[in-house]
């Protein structure tokens, strides 16, 4: 299926609905007094678009808009993920004090725009679209990061983010230009055929890929393109941090998979992916993965600021996700998809608790969590423990299942070294996650620590997230089925 512009429109509902919502918000922002309505509107819009997305399942996959974007299960999956991220983050923002102090109209606009950008990142089938969508997400992210007024941290973070983004995407398009030069086309399918028929120069191809990885990598936050994340995560308003940590991470994974798997590798039987021989991109990624998880965990060890700590743990998890990619095998990719969902849930949950505590104490340091369980916030504390242990990867929590599939893929392909490194990392990570749990439960509050109350809104969201974390830990059958059948690329 290869549709032109007009024919494509009827497969374009989700994007259309989302864009409509965005414009609507911009308009209403001018007239509406209560900004709460905007949030609800945003939620409604993304729900609607979510429904539309699910509605698109079952339609024959294919190209839209003259081979600009692809409609297939893979893109649909990531659309769902980014919508969920946006949805939950908007919900989270409702209960966040930081957000109440800023211009929410613009805030929600930009947030949804970013989500829209992620749509295209997941579905672009063309170097140009890839670049555009990436930039769309990036620019919106800069803005979101710098959203807090008169907060130098936020602004500085935004600046830093911008500079990294600029350099990274610049490097990326330079690399893309080489690919273009070697294949004479921007279209993924074309690239694939050209690469596999012609005899492209291995070295230049390798360099081009490394450059491109710079662009993708700083979205997925892996070493050495990770440096921005701690500052940005710490500086940005917490819901934004949450959004970046799950959303742009997922979108980056999507675009990376889309480019490196269907575009420049071939699917062999048995679900293995053959890469262009002589281009040791997987080896590069293998090392990157190990370094990433190790560095992330080590840095996380002595962090005092929880957002910063979660940033580093996010880096580590990027490393885990890469594990699934380097095995060049469908099992690995499936594991990655599953992990993306799980990570979304548990990480958002963790950030939600951060928001709840920050609402009351205005602090993000671990000290603010001293004896949380005994300060009338037993439930958030317990949920936080659940999320953190799930991040560590302990059964019977979702995180374990995610890790389990990743390990499974790695071991099945016999990457034992990688597995061992991952084990050691798991143990290290337990150390700092348990450190937080210790502060919440094993330490007892000082009289100075004010109690933490919880609003209905937040506790509802918290309940949902923690319930999901446990549920997917015990019965993940349907979810894994969904993620598995989401790994369907449309290739022609």
């Amino acid at each position, binding site marked *: 299926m290869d549709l032109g512009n007009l024919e494509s429109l009827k497969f374009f509902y989700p994007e259309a609905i989302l864009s409509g919502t965005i414009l609507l918000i911009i308009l209403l922002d001018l007239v509406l007094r209560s900004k709460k309505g905007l949030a609800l509107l945003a939620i409604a819009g993304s729900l609607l678009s979510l429904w539309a997305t699910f509605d698109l399942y079952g339609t024959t996959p294919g190209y839209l808009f003259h081979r600009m974007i692809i409609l297939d299960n893979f893109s649909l999956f990531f659309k769902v993920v980014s919508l969920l991220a946006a949805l939950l983050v908007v919900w989270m923002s409702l209960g966040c004090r930081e957000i109440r102090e800023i211009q929410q109209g613009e805030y929600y606009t930009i947030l949804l725009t970013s989500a829209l950008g992620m749509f295209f990142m997941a579905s672009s089938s063309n170097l140009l679209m890839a670049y555009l969508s990436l930039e769309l997400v990036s620019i919106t992210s800069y803005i979101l990061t710098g959203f807090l007024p008169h907060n130098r941290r936020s602004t*500085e973070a935004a*600046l*830093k983010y911008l*500079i*990294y983004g600029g*350099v990274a995407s610049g490097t990326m398009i330079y690399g893309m230009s080489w690919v273009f030069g070697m294949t004479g086309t921007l279209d993924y399918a074309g690239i694939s055929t050209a690469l596999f028929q012609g005899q492209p120069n291995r*070295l230049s191809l*390798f*360099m081009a890929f*490394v*450059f491109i990885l*710079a662009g993708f990598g700083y979205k997925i936050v892996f*070493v*050495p*393109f990770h*440096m*921005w994340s*701690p*500052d940005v995560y710490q500086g940005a308003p917490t819901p934004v941090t949450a959004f970046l940590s799950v959303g742009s991470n997922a979108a980056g994974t999507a675009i990376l998979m889309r480019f490196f798997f269907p575009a420049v590798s071939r699917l062999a039987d048995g679900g293995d992916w053959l890469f262009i021989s*002589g281009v*040791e991109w997987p080896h*590069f990624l293998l090392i990157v993965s190990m370094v990433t998880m190790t*560095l992330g965990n*080590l*840095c*996380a*060890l*002595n962090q005092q600021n929880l957002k910063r700590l979660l940033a580093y743990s996010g880096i580590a998890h990027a490393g885990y996700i890469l594990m699934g990619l380097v095995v060049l095998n469908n099992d690995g990719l499936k594991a990655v998809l599953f992990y993306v969902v799980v990570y979304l849930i548990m990480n958002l949950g963790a950030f939600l608790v951060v928001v709840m505590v920050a609402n009351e104490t205005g602090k993000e340091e671990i000290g603010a969590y001293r004896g949380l369980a005994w300060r009338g916030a037993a439930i958030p504390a317990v949920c936080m423990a659940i999320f953190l242990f799930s991040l560590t990867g302990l059964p019977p929590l979702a995180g374990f299942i995610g890790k389990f599939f990743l390990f499974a893929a790695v071991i099945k392909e016999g990457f034992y070294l990688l597995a061992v490194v991952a084990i050691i990392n798991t143990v*290290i990570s337990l*150390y700092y996650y348990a450190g937080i749990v210790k502060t919440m439960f094993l330490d007892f509050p000082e009289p100075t620590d004010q109690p933490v109350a919880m609003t209905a809104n937040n506790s509802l969201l918290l309940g949902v997230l923690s319930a999901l974390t446990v549920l997917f830990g015990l019965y993940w059958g349907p979810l894994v089925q969904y993620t598995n059948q989401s790994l369907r690329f449309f290739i022609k």
Partner: protein
Amino acid sequence: MEHPIQTDYLRWIVFLPLLGAVVNGLLGAQLQKRLGKRAISLIACAPVLGAFLISVVAFWHLLALEPEQRFLIDRLYPWLSLGSLKVDVAFWIDPLSAVMILVVTGIGGLIHIYSIGYMHEDKSYWRFFAFLNLFTFAMLLLVLGDNLLLMFVGWEGVGLCSYALIGFWYQDHVNTTAGNKAFIVNRVGDFGFVLGIFLIFWTLDQQGHGTVTFREIEKFALLLNGQEIWGIGVATLATLFLFIGATGKSAQIPLHVWLPDAMQGPTPVSALIHAATMVTAGVYMIARLHFLYSMAPFTLSVVAVIGVTTALFAATIALTQNDIKRVLAYSTISQLGYMFLGAGVAAYGAAIFHLMTHAFFKACLFLGSGSVIHAMGGEQDMRKMGGLRHAMPYTFWTFTVSVLAIGGTPLTAGFFSKDEILWKAFSSEHGSQALWALGVVGAGLTAFYMFRQLFLVFFGECRADHHVQEHLHESPKVMTMPLVILAIGSIAAGWIGLPEIFGGSQFAKWLEPVFGEHHEAHASATSEELLMICSVGVAAFGFFIAYFMYYRASISPERFSSLAGGAFYRLFYNKYYVDEIYHAIFVRGALLLARIGAWIDQYIIDFIVDGSAKTTAFVSWLNGLFDNYVVDWMVNTVANLTFWAGGKFRRVQTGNINSYLYVILGAVVLAIIVRLRYSG
């Protein structure tokens, strides 16, 4: 013997005392409050006497049978049956064990009765009797158990009771220490014992007859011939292992150290456990497994040598002791030495005979000393006694009789039994003149120190202070009765085992079915007489020296004690410093190792563990260093420069971007170079 006669009453011999122990142990405290000490003593003594009666019945039962049929068994239930290991809880009785149970229950009963009087003031009366009963139970189990494991249960059980009774007055640190010593030393012996069991079992198992029951071991004993482990004959090794156990229980060198300290316990305990019964378990065990020992001549000689050495060794120590009970303790050790000498020359019958007679007179002596101590108000130092014969006639006469017996005065039990052993030591094919000679010397020493004790305690002037003298009194009937009976025993018991020249030994006949005929090269009767006279002479010599020293005081003890500048005296008096040496080596050594182990745990293993954690932390700290230090440095340098206009703009963070970008670019370049280098 192939078809043992099943009975179902033997178990009661064992269980009656257990019953008493359980009742007293669980309810004793209450009963004592409610019903008083009488009830306790009734509950305690009745079962033992009951057991005695049943034993007598069993004895008659045996007598009624043909000699080679004399064998009853009472099987209860399978205790352990795993693979080839099949162990029943079963009791058996044959002439040998019959003798033992009669001794145990009989003398034990008497001592129980004696204790009623002796312990009367003690407030944890019930506890004492509970343990006494428990001990009787364990001892009977040891004797009647039809397999090595069951015997081992009794073996350790008696150890436990002796531990508990030595430390009966646990408020005093000395007593508990003595208890620990006894238990641990015994444990060392038991350790050997167990290994012996294992060795026997597995060796027979290889032959397809893995077993630990005595009868079957006897049946298959010959299979052990020619079996070797570590180049040593299995029979030899096994018997040696078991013998380690025997040395522990029976206080032979090198494990004798616990017995003297064991005198810390109440005197009846010393009498029952540390003289009459428990300590003879080793001898009994060897007799029980005589077929194995007879297969291992080397072991036999070891046993004999150890025995005679111990006999002399202990005797020399006994010469110098002043504590009335310690003297008896050492004499016990040395008498046990004689028994082992007997066993060592394959004269098991003689050994058992001496065991029995010794049970009588030694119990009598201990109980006598007990009644003395009782009268002296707890005083145990003989130098503070003297002239008690007027104050306590019964005690005096019974004591004298048993001293005569142990001293080997002709026609007393001790005379016959000890002489039997000495004769066998001389004449049996395992014996030798040397063994005999040493034995005789020992006999002389025995006579000396026993009479020394007699004179010091009962003759001459009383050296105690007035307060004590006023309270001197004969003990109550309940205490003197047993003394009398035992005294009679220590004369009469000998007559069932007369030497050949006086018409042969009933006792030996009785044990024949067990040990079989031991036809030793029979030297002429005259030589036996000669030897007998010789030993009697030596004993008499000992008696006279004691007489002149301590009765007439015409020879001053210092004459001897100052020999060789008193070196010998000090050596004997300090028990050859064995305790000190052991303490230095074993106790200290163990504690040292313990400390080392704990140290390793704390400082090495944990160090490694924490170390790995620390390194991780360190690495992460290094990262932090890079993050915080390098970058902050840049930040602050940068801060002043980014927006030059700014005192205002200090510490603006864009600087670290560069360093980060360095890293990125460096990594990329590196990757490319590596790529070129390795797969170009």
